[in-house]
């Protein structure tokens, strides 16, 4: 009985994990698309954290420019992960004409790596990242393949089966209570710690994209004006980004003044899409 139990446990684990992997590969979720690969040449690829998700609304960009756009941004994606995802993308797709990087993810802490373990079977870069950030999760993922699918990204992949996740954007608007708190908050005078690994990854990402023939644009999406006005460290931050990337930053952090266009202090909502597109046109980001 013990042998039957252990045999069933491991064989079933591997078999079920393969089934889940096959299911995940059919999803319209952005990372499933990356690892499924294809011949499609995207004109524009966007990458960043949640500010990239909500700041650069792919259907809006497509309509405005007439170009194909793929947004690979994800909540909590730091620059190290962004580099790995984009390089994996380049291994599987023709290089895009333009890469838009939302570079404020240099401020992000590692966190998304473990969630990407459901794609780890397809990427040596991801396996290496996960092992360096969360060695226990990496080993657990070797012991039980089902564990790799124990994350939110897999649930999103299931949600987008037969669908397309590019229309993902915040629908809610920041509330008055939050606005009042932000108005009352003191200004920030100290630059928050920037991950050196993130800054280095930003430099490598820009270099790799250029080497593949991409035009690289570092574009900072809008912040809530009430909050942005309190970031006294901003010029210092821009200088560090430009030095690390070896590229100019297009600073659209103040591009949208309408408070109703924001879901919170960091993220636009659907109402902010059009005003930002206009500013992107005006600033030459959308050529």
């Amino acid at each position, binding site marked *: *009985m013990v042998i*039957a*139990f252990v045999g*069933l*446990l491991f064989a*079933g*684990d591997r078999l*079920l994990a393969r089934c889940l992997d096959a299911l995940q590969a059919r999803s319209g979720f952005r990372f499933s698309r990356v690892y499924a690969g294809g011949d499609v040449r995207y004109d524009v690829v966007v990458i960043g954290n949640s500010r990239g998700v909500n700041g650069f609304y792919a259907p809006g960009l497509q309509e405005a420019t007439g170009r194909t756009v793929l947004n690979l941004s994800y909540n909590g994606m730091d620059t190290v992960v962004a580099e790995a995802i984009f390089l994996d993308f380049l291994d599987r797709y023709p290089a895009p004409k333009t890469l838009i990087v939302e570079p404020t993810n240099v401020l992000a802490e590692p966190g998304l790596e473990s969630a990407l373990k459901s794609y780890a079977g397809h990427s040596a870069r991801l396996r290496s990242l996960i092992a360096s950030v969360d060695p226990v999760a990496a080993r*657990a993922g070797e012991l*039980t393949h*089902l*564990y790799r*699918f*124990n994350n*939110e990204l897999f*649930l*999103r992949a299931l*949600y987008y089966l037969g669908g397309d996740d590019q229309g993902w954007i915040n*629908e*809610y608007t920041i*509330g008055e*209570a*939050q606005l009042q708190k932000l108005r009352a908050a003191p200004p920030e005078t100290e630059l928050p710690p920037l991950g050196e690994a993130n800054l280095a990854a930003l430099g490598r990402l820009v270099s790799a994209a250029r080497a593949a023939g991409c035009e690289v644009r570092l574009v900072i999406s809008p912040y809530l004006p009430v909050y942005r006005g309190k970031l006294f460290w901003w010029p210092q931050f821009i200088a560090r980004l430009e030095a690390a990337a070896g590229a100019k930053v297009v600073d659209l952090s103040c591009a949208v003044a309408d408070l109703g266009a924001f879901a919170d202090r960091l993220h636009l909502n659907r109402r902010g899409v059009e005003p930002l597109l206009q500013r992107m046109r005006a600033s030459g980001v959308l050529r």
Partner: protein
Amino acid sequence: MLFNSLAFLVFIAAFFPLYVVLKGRARLWLVLAASYLFYGWWDWRFLSLIAISTGVDYLVGRKLDTVEDAVARKRLLVLSVTVNLGLLGVFKYLGFFTASLLAALHAAGWNGRAEPLEIVLPVGISFYTFQTMSYAIDVYRRRIPVERDLLRFACFVGFFPQLVAGPIVRASRLLPQFREDQPIRWANVVHGVQLMLWGYFLKVGMADSLAAFVDQNFAHVDTMPSSSLFLGVLFYAFQIYGDFCGYSLIAIGLGRVLGFDLGVNFDRPYFSRSFSEFWKRWHISLSTWLRDYLYVSLGGNRRGVRKTYRNLMLTMLLGGLWHGAAWTFVVWGALHGCFLVVQRLVGPHWSRLVAALRVPEWLDTVTLQLTVFAFTCLAWVFFRARDFDTAFTLLHRLLTVDGWSLSAVPAKFQVIKGLALIAAVVTLEALSFRVKVSDLVVRRPAVAVATATAVIWAIALFGTFRGDAFIYFQF
């Protein structure tokens, strides 16, 4: 040492072979040493408190065996209760009462400065003090024979599966099991492992998966949308159930593997049709302790209606206070006391109304279950909230019309996963009323293998491995 930790795995891997090999007193010494190692892993200094509780109640028991005089017997009982409640009072409640006194003095206009006491709460103290007190009380009432063997008695008090978070096992159930070597039976191992696996699923699969969303909502009650707060309360009801029932199952299952019967501590409480039924299904070892040693001692329901209500309220108030040194726990207990009183007042009228209207039984059952669940959730708000401000703000937000949009709920995928896990647990528990899974598991190896593998797969696929301690460790 947490049940969901690597240290525990190593501990049990080392303990079990020795337990199988050793017999008689050697086995008892192993159990005691392992139990003290298990407990001392948190803080070795607190072993002295278990030793004090053990020593006092052992000696009280021995003395009660030789003393016939009623006054002297009562004094011995008072000694046991005083020492045990004294330990509890100092380590659990002294800081709380001094802080409350200081707050009251400040409110009355006193301008003096004094820092409230910060005393570390020893893990499990609420459980083992109640366990040893029940022994002394039962010996005093001549319900059980005295235990003359100190080693056996110390094993009863410190038995590691149930030491830190229950169940509170009565001496009448557990002590006799230490009088002879419990054989390792295959059926017990299978059943015990199944209980432990289900316990781990409830804890790391369900409870810990719900925890982050609950924490986020209770930490930001003034800014989270009402729809999210509602889900937060619902999730907490299942987080605390999964956490505590999960721990109990792991403890009971582990005891079963070792050949011990530690009873049942949870019996599908959210299917209760009344609050009295709820307290026969939730934390059964504590509720029966409170019933037998507090409620009955106060007179129970034998001294008229008003005194019955008084006794119910007192029992539940103290039950609330047992859970934590904070007024929110007292209010939680008071709410349950009120629910029990109201149930006694309204119950007979409800039954007559249902009969008069010829309401189908299934509809009556579902209505009652949902009502009990809803009010239980209301009470959980006070249990979980860090202070009254948080609790009342949350309740106020739940009563407002605005903020009920589902699109405003954050972490939607976390919510969907949480709802799916709750639905799965509720469905399986509902099915268990028709099918006795434990019997099937023991009688049919194929069922045992299939259910064990399914639960392990579910833990791998849904478990959240934050290494969270069990909620009831703080009690």
